């Protein structure tokens, strides 16, 4: 991370839970069922400066050590508290069903890796990408936006229009929501038909595919892919990417899911159940595979809670 990039700070919180497996889910759609999306290119040609204004989903705060903290207005509550301190928390809103990430928290996901590398000459204005996960009863979307953020003025300007990426829920309906989209790019060139040896099948040009898993309402995530690549998320959304090579790839890891749990003890009539927030570790394993008998690659995901709920509590509907 460059010195300039370090001027932006996003706090991380990753708490590993006690390992007690309790539940399960799995689903296996065809990979073709996972929507294909094109990510917007990262912005270029940074302005020299951005005047301070008010009309932005980003909040930019100078910090004590001369850096700035960039927070999305919809970022989760506990993270804000760590970043901003108790007094600042009230300035920001948390919208139900919305999870947001800012900056380089997801930089290890290849699709977003270049986010912070474009900046103006004196490195005071940087491109900041935000991802906002909108979860609705009828589906979910990932909204990707780019902004210019001026570390000197704390001004924010839109760099490019928001791109909406459709997501497919890939986890079972009864379990924690995990969504996915896929990306593809042209793979290395393959030999032309006239260079193939006699009897050798001529492959059609393949595309390198990857599948990006998206989980909201989390406090950090930690993954490793079969390619050896490690991925970590340190915000409300966890991203994990499966690099599909030779028709197969895996990713595994865990996220700390923020839940609301509800007391199950008998209570007086008309008394609402008491609830409390609870962090629960969720193990996620996903893969893409194809045998000679599968007409197309299959996508698979399984999840497993690693932490038990407190006695006499249950999860509210996910």
């Amino acid at each position, binding site marked *: 991370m460059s010195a300039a990039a370090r001027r932006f700070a996003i706090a991380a919180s990753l708490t590993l839970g006690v390992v007690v497996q309790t539940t399960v889910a799995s689903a*296996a759609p065809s990979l073709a069922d996972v929507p294909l999306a094109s990510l917007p290119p990262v912005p270029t040609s940074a302005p020299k400066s951005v005047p301070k204004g008010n009309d932005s989903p980003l909040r930019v705060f100078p910090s004590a050590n001369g850096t700035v903290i960039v927070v999305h207005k919809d970022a989760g509550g506990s993270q804000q508290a760590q970043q901003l301190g108790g007094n600042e928390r009230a300035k920001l809103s948390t919208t139900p069903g919305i999870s947001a990430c800012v900056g380089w928290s997801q930089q290890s996901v290849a699709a977003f890796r270049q986010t912070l590398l474009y900046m103006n000459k004196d490195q005071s204005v940087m491109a900041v990408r935000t991802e906002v996960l909108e979860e609705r009863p009828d589906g979910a979307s990932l909204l990707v936006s780019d902004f210019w953020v001026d570390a000197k003025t704390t001004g924010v300007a839109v760099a490019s229009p928001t791109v909406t990426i459709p997501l497919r829920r890939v986890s079972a309906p009864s379990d924690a929501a995990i969504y996915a989209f896929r990306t593809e790019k042209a793979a290395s060139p393959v030999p032309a038909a006239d260079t193939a040896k006699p009897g050798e099948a001529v492959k059609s040009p393949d595309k390198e595919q990857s599948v990006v898993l998206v989980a909201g309402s989390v406090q950090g995530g930690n993954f*490793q892919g*079969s390619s050896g690549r490690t991925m970590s998320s340190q915000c409300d959304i966890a991203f994990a990417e499966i690099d599909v090579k030779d028709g197969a790839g895996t990713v*595994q890891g865990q996220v700390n899911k923020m839940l609301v749990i509800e007391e199950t003890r008998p209570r007086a009539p008309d008394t609402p159940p008491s609830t409390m927030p609870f962090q629960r570790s969720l193990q996620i394993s996903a893969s893409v595979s194809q045998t000679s008998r599968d007409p197309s690659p299959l996508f698979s995901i399984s999840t497993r809670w690693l932490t038990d709920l407190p006695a006499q509590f249950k999860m509210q509907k996910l």
Partner: protein
Amino acid sequence: MSPMSPTRFTGISSRTGIALLVVLSGSALVGCGKAGTGGTAAKPAVPTQARVSQGCARQNPGVGAVRVDDARVGGAVALARLGDRTVAYVADEDDSVLHTVDLGSGRELVTTQLGGAPSQILVAKDGRVLVALRDKNQVQVLEPAANVELPLSNRCAIDVATEPVALAATPDDGAVLVTSGWGRALTGLDGDTLSKKYQIPLAREPRQIVVSDDGSKAFIAHVVGSRVSAVDLVTPEHPVRTVDMSGQDDGIFRNRRSAAKVASLLKGAPGGKGSQQRMGCQSFTLAKSIDPPGRIFAPQVLVDPGDLEQQSSGYGDGRRPAEVASIGVIDEGKAEPMPASLHIAANEAQHRGAAKGECLLPRASATDAKGKSLYVTCLGIDAVVEYDAVSADPRVAEKRRWNVPAGPTGVAIDAQGRRAVVWSQFDQVVSVIALDGEPTAKPTLLALSRKARSATDGDIALGRKLFHAASDDRISADGRACASCHPDGRDDSLTWATPEGPRNTPMLAGRLTQTAPYGWNGESDEVKTHLTHTFSRLQGRGLEAREVDAVVSFVTTMRTPVTYVPEAGPEANKIARGKVVFESAETQCATCHHADGSWVDGEKHDVGTRAAADPNNQFDTPTLRFVGGTAPYFHDGRYRSLRDLLVGHDGKMGATKQLSPVDMESLEAYMRTL
């Protein structure tokens, strides 16, 4: 089906002694126990010579229970249905009986006495029940009665190669396949008459069979050797292709010389490719996916025995786990493993949920199409683990697990009843797991009847559990069990890095009596001392004295292969000639390997085999009991076959390489009978 030819049985286990005497007296095979207890009636269905001559066909076709869900793979549990009743047939190896259990009422209905210790059951298309009797080298054929509460009646017994361990039927039911563990063979029987059609040789320790959907290939697991065999069932010669089940571990780094040494020692093994390879082991079971089709699962462990050029601090070099649970996925159409299922990333442990006890001793498996799940029973941690059957690497896609009583050796799926039926041999309990139940729901347990004097009582029972105890820090720090290196009490066919240099794992079963001292350098005068030393080497906390005694009781009475030796004919003549060669002054074999049944002299010798990492050049004379089935040979596993040893050694240990081809062959044939 033919009557047995004159034979001399070998096998020294005290547990098989009574049965052997019966055979040698010329009587028919007689059940070796009395009726089961617990309110069920055990009636003998013993294969007799008279019944063999009557043939294996059903006497009352069309009556009795039939198989469930067209299951054509054998197991220690097999399901059958009669009307709306679903029953489980359970193979009880300790009591040599077949239990019939009504899954609806949870009641044991009856036991049927068998002619020997059953390993697997297969329900044929017409309801006949085939049972592989591993200690009798036969497949017993039973017929169900119209009333499922009555014992099954015996139809016949079919002679097969030594130690039948697994059964399967082809998709058209045209053939029944039998694998023989010690006999290293696949026997094909006619699906109707059960007459023998062919027998083909296999690599060491074959086990579970599954047949491809098109019936063209049989896939066969091997406990050792990092392989699955793919047998062509169409071509008359039935050629066998090896499917390499070794894994790739990105976290193992060794210098080039060490890598070359490892590759050299593994030469000829399918996985001998280099230092980052892990060898497949413990592959007792296979399961075929139904939906999606075309996937065959091979639960196993991937082993890194360490850097054989170095002296290590334990068994393996300790930098990475010596054994990692694995589920190889084989592409049925291509008969090749999917690489992702055999790959271990460099630092994956950091990204997995902390291990609750890995499945290091998988023994049985089955799939459920509706849930797209694979179920694996695990000895040692006494659990059934459910994996995602669509995953490219099911090992890292665990969905649920259930604790079950000790010794789960069989599982069958009742797709219609949405339940898994698990047999725990050590505790003799059936567990019924609701597949669609709450994730935290516990299995329903059904304790089955047991004989008053079981083959495995008291200390031996305790010793057996301890021998298989995985994830027990009294035994080892990294979860390994005794059975990890000694599956079925035998050997893993591997050479390990140890503080004394490279050490080839020895077979234990049948080899510990009168063969002191123990250890390749003869460092322990007693088995107990050597066990304690081994636990220490594995960084285990150690067992209490009584527990060590129990393990000693078990390991000195473990079931051994029961082979038979022809007493007349060309093979018998060859063996007799081999005995002469063995005891001759020319070869001097018997000078150190005394022909008193121990095949040792209790001494240490320098036979010029010191390896680079060996601090010592004196090696204890190893016993030759069961030597024919324990390749590779020498303390560092340098010889991959008996012939390699006899031809390749330089003469400091007897003189055999100059023998004529006939004498060489005879000597080898004789040694295989020891």
